[in-house]
């Protein structure tokens, strides 16, 4: 029988670890190119057309059965509201979409920007949720099951767009709340979200995501002096179902233009593959160390006893 000494034990352990790491890395790269469901739907938002009437907010409130707002939906004073740190409004448990105003120097009118869930192709909220509450449907919506949500709020931190809100008002069962693209009542049946349909200016165009991308680039090509040559959401964080056209650079209207084109999960995937390895190998490894280091003492004890 081959004698196991300290050196060969360590060698074996390292080799096994390396092999596991290699297979782990392989599965990570294989899952990298999902790129979204092929026939998923989306919404193309053209900020040059929005006049800030807030009809979309009213439509969302009605469709989703949300509680009474603090101010009427035709009240323009909400545009002056600021959150802590001078930040504009963001979606809350009572409003899954909000419109914000940006005063741009040199632009004739202020720019109004609608904010709601962007419905990522590879959502960070979904991958961060340890109870699997989230689901990306083939239609394109990122939906969630509030009955399994445990209120850990990891998704709120994971979301690169700061979209999921939390029902802090509920003392008994606080859960995460966000736009579901009207999946239950509309999208499931092939119909556009309520905000899209209600918009008087048709700021938003509903359609297949692939078709919307073609349309967006056609619009840019035909109006090169009007639009910024970028479709926000085409590539950002692996692509989103909601796409944006603007005449003002995106970083000036609150968009994060440094998110990169990788889905958020890619940044942690390699680390996460190491976790099971650590959990399986380390106990055996350190038990081995312990036994080895104690063997001499144990032998000595036995010898002195006998």
């Amino acid at each position: 029988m081959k004698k196991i000494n300290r050196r060969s034990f360590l060698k074996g352990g390292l080799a096994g670890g390396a092999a596991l790491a290699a297979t782990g890395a392989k599965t990570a790269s294989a899952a990298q190119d999902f790129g979204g469901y092929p026939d998923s739907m989306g919404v193309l938002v053209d900020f040059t057309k929005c006049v800030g009437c807030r009809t979309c907010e009213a439509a969302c409130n009605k469709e989703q059965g949300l509680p009474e707002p603090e101010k009427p939906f035709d009240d323009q004073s909400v545009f002056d509201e600021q959150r802590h740190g001078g930040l504009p409004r963001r979606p809350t448990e009572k409003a899954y979409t909000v419109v914000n105003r940006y005063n741009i120097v040199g632009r004739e009118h202020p720019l109004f920007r609608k904010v709601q869930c962007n419905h990522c192709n590879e959502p960070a909220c979904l991958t961060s949720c340890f109870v699997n509450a989230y689901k990306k449907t083939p239609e394109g919506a990122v939906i969630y099951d509030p009955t399994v949500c445990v209120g850990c709020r990891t998704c709120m931190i994971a979301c690169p767009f700061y979209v999921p809100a939390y029902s802090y008002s509920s003392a008994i069962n606080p859960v995460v709340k966000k736009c579901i693209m009207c999946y239950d009542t509309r999208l499931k049946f092939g119909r556009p979200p309520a905000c899209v349909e209600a918009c008087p200016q048709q700021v938003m165009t509903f359609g297949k995501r692939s078709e919307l991308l073609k349309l967006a680039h056609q619009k840019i090509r035909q109006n090169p002096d009007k639009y910024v040559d970028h479709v926000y959401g085409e590539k950002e964080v692996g692509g989103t179902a909601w796409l944006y056209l603007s005449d003002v650079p995106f970083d000036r209207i609150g968009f994060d233009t440094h998110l990169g084109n990788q889905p958020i999960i890619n940044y942690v995937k390699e680390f996460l593959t190491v976790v099971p390895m650590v959990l399986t190998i380390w106990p055996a490894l350190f038990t081995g160390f312990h036994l080895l280091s104690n063997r001499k003492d144990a032998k000595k004890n036995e010898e002195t006893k006998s």
Partner: protein
Amino acid sequence: MGGKKKLLGVAAVLVLTAPLASRSWAETGPDTVVLDSLANHYEAVTFDHAMHVDVAGNCATCHHHTTGEAPVDQNCGRCHSAAQGASGIACRDCHSVEPFSAANLKAIDSNPQMYHTGKPGLKGALHQKCLGCHQEMGAPTGCQDCHARNDQGDAFFRAGKYAPKPTASESHGGGH
């Protein structure tokens, strides 16, 4: 609450009612047009077509190439040259009441040759044209400057008698 959730059927049934024709209809179209596609939230608008003909001067300003005048937008001119009219001239002849209907989405999907895939629906077309020009000309741009909101509209916007009651704990709002 959930049962009450009525689908927001913006029942955009536009009735371009029979023109109250008086003067040379063949040349300038109807004098007035009643627009009531948003009847669920707003009173109908009686659009003074004759006045707008005088202001715009050119049919193509609003009607693109359909009246047989040269289109204003250069992009349209690449295909629609002057004197190439269309059988339908009214807005609703081309701009669909339900632009995102299953039929319209299918048509875009099944016909890769289709060009006007982003053509706005009737409501969008009317507002984009009207508001765009009203902003430029300094004409009224408020929602109720053109159409007065009805009771249903007040309920939808939580305004008027449906406005939220101001609470004593105004600053007590949920998350920061």
